[in-house]
């Protein structure tokens, strides 16, 4: 290939067109990723130029840190509740709205509004709903004779309040995905099922649900990755408390990095989390493939 032909080749112009994007991604994506990998083997506070390499000390410290163990537990409990919870609520609302009724556009907008509400407003609303003394939830509990709860003040309840808060916040997202998937379910299939004698529940269970499986897999993976990276709601409502009850991995690494200046240790935690996310995502895809039905 002569230089002239090289310059005119499609591959060259292709690369030339994407190069600014590639450079930006490398600069703001790859560089921090590599840098934090290096930092995870250093004692580094980002303040002083003295950043000695400490081998795997940060990773060894991580294994023996009782707060990391707690944070992993909290992260997993949260993920196990949040992901199916959001999917179920989203599926229910999407199925309820997948019909021709009056004001349907309004209902759909309302359902999606939870995505549009900023996390800070969402957190403030939930803090007040679940306030032990002045909250609406405890008021309803008192009406039906349930004992008053401490919610965010209780180490055994705070995490569950955050689960509810985030399920509410992500419901709109799940609704939109499921609604789109539901509209792709061909009506003749459900009609055929009805003619064959299937009731509405059976038709939903045996025909609609399998056809939604690609959407379900997408949601499961997407929500899991987000759940493992939970931060905003914790930061805004409990700051990891009370007594570390809501300290999840990302929040803990944030406090290590930006409050205690242990950037090396925080990077090690970040890489550990990265590993967890990869393992879980691979498992999800492997398992999901068996249950996912793609029409093509």
């Amino acid at each position, binding site marked *: 290939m002569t230089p002239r032909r*090289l310059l005119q*080749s499609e591959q060259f112009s292709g690369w030339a067109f994407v190069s600014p994007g590639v*450079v930006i991604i490398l600069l703001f994506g790859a560089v921090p990723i590599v840098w934090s990998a290096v930092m995870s083997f250093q004692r580094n506070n980002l303040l002083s130029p003295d950043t000695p390499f400490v081998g795997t000390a940060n990773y060894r410290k991580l294994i023996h840190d009782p707060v990391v163990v707690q944070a992993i537990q909290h992260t997993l409990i949260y993920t196990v509740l949040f992901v199916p919870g959001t999917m179920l609520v989203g599926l229910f609302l999407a199925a309820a709205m997948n019909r021709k009724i009056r004001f349907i556009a309004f209902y759909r907008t309302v359902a999606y509004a939870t995505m549009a509400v900023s996390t800070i407003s969402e957190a*403030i609303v939930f803090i007040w709903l679940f306030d032990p003394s002045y909250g609406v939830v405890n008021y309803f509990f008192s009406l039906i004779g349930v004992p008053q709860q401490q919610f965010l003040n209780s180490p055994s309840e705070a995490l569950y309040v955050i689960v509810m808060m985030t399920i509410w916040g992500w419901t709109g997202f799940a609704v939109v995905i499921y609604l789109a998937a539901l509209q792709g379910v061909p009506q003749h299939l459900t009609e055929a099922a009805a003619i064959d004698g299937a009731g509405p529940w059976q038709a939903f269970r045996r025909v609609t649900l399998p056809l939604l499986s690609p959407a379900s897999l997408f949601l499961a993976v997407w929500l899991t990755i987000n759940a493992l990276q939970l931060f905003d709601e914790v930061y805004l409502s*409990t700051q990891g408390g009370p007594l570390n009850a809501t300290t999840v991995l990302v929040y803990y690494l944030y*406090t290590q990095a930006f409050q205690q200046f242990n950037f090396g240790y925080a990077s090690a935690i970040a890489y550990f989390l990265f590993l967890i996310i990869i393992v879980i995502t691979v498992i999800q895809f492997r398992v999901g493939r068996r249950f996912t039905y793609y029409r093509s």
Partner: protein
Amino acid sequence: MAVFAKAGFSKAHLAGLLAVLTGAAVLAACGTDSTSSSGNNSSGGTTIQIWEGYTQVEAKAFAHLVSQYEATHPGQKVNTLYVNSDNTLQKVLTAVRGGSPPDIAYLYGSWAPNVAQIPSVVNLTQVVKRPGVNWDDFWTGERAVATVNGKVIGIPALVDNLAVVYNKTLFAQAGLQPPGPGWTWQDFVADAKKLTNPAVKQYGTAYVTPGTEDTVWHWEALLWEAGGQLLSADNSKAAFDSAAGLASLNTLRTMAVTDKSMYLDPSDSAYGNLFNSGKIGMLVTGPWDLATFSNVKYGVQVMPAYPGTAGGHQTISGPDNWVVFNNGSARTAAAEQFLIWLTSATQDKYFAVQTGDLPIRQSVGQDASVVNQMNTAVPGMSTFISNLGNVKQARPQIPQYPKISTALGTMIVSVLLGKSQPQAALSAAAQQVDQILAAG
């Protein structure tokens, strides 16, 4: 080229790689431009860059001062950049790594021991000795926070303190005398109990319980008042596992657990609204909250004391600093000159009256006309100003403080939630703090 072809690396790939690298070079070239735009300008003057976190009235007053400075100092130019103060250190660290720190940044005092480790931070020890600076005119608490290991690393930018803000109406309803200047923690606890009324969900007082530094510094004032110390004099050991430490935690426990007269606020966001709605009798808080209490009739009193101890009426202050970064001697000199001007009595007077921020200089805090103006604008301010004289100690100025704070936060919250007895919590926290200090 044949080598590339064998390895599956075609010429087209190579071309692509070259294109990417060219793009990178172009971007890199764009990136270096920004630093040269400030600095010595053509007219022989100097331009400095300052990062501050002022909004609303503060931003307006600050902009006014900057333009006044530029007008009275020909050739000097001050570029201001708004940065949310919570994130300033994070951004400064990035800028330092990139070789283009601001000349001056507004940084929280709690960061000072860590900020002192940044190599480009300018040592101001000699600067504050210059004639006209009058360093001793700054409050004791401010000077303590601006100094790390005997080295001055900042000029005071803001000062505050904690005092008791109480609801006059609720005190009258409960048939209580308003707190006097000689009151004790025993009075506080007794009043809090009488002000509590579960039927109307009214609490005597409140405490913030996220376990962060906001939880911790409220308690530190109690510890000092009870005659205690956080660490040993050489900062090598925990010293709060003492009779004073126990007394301070017992005071909190009595209200939170025994009397249930204390509203616990896990989010650090609700207590202000509740006080402003007349649901809380007394708050230990700072001057920044006063302007938001527009719906209640409030009074302000100094912190109660522990009788029989040497502590007396103390309080704690969380001052912030202006920190100078080295961008060459010309800009450093210009930055120092600007800060000396900005924090001098005349400018301090203007800023305090305009914004309601407490005067950073004692001479301004004792100026009756300033105090009157501020107290008329926001009633209760005069108590907060005079209470600055009760700031007698500062938190330990050591880099391990954030870690110590975390251990103390856990200790306090576990007592407030009734999960630990005060003595057990003290012992556990002291052991942790000793470990943190031993690790260096």
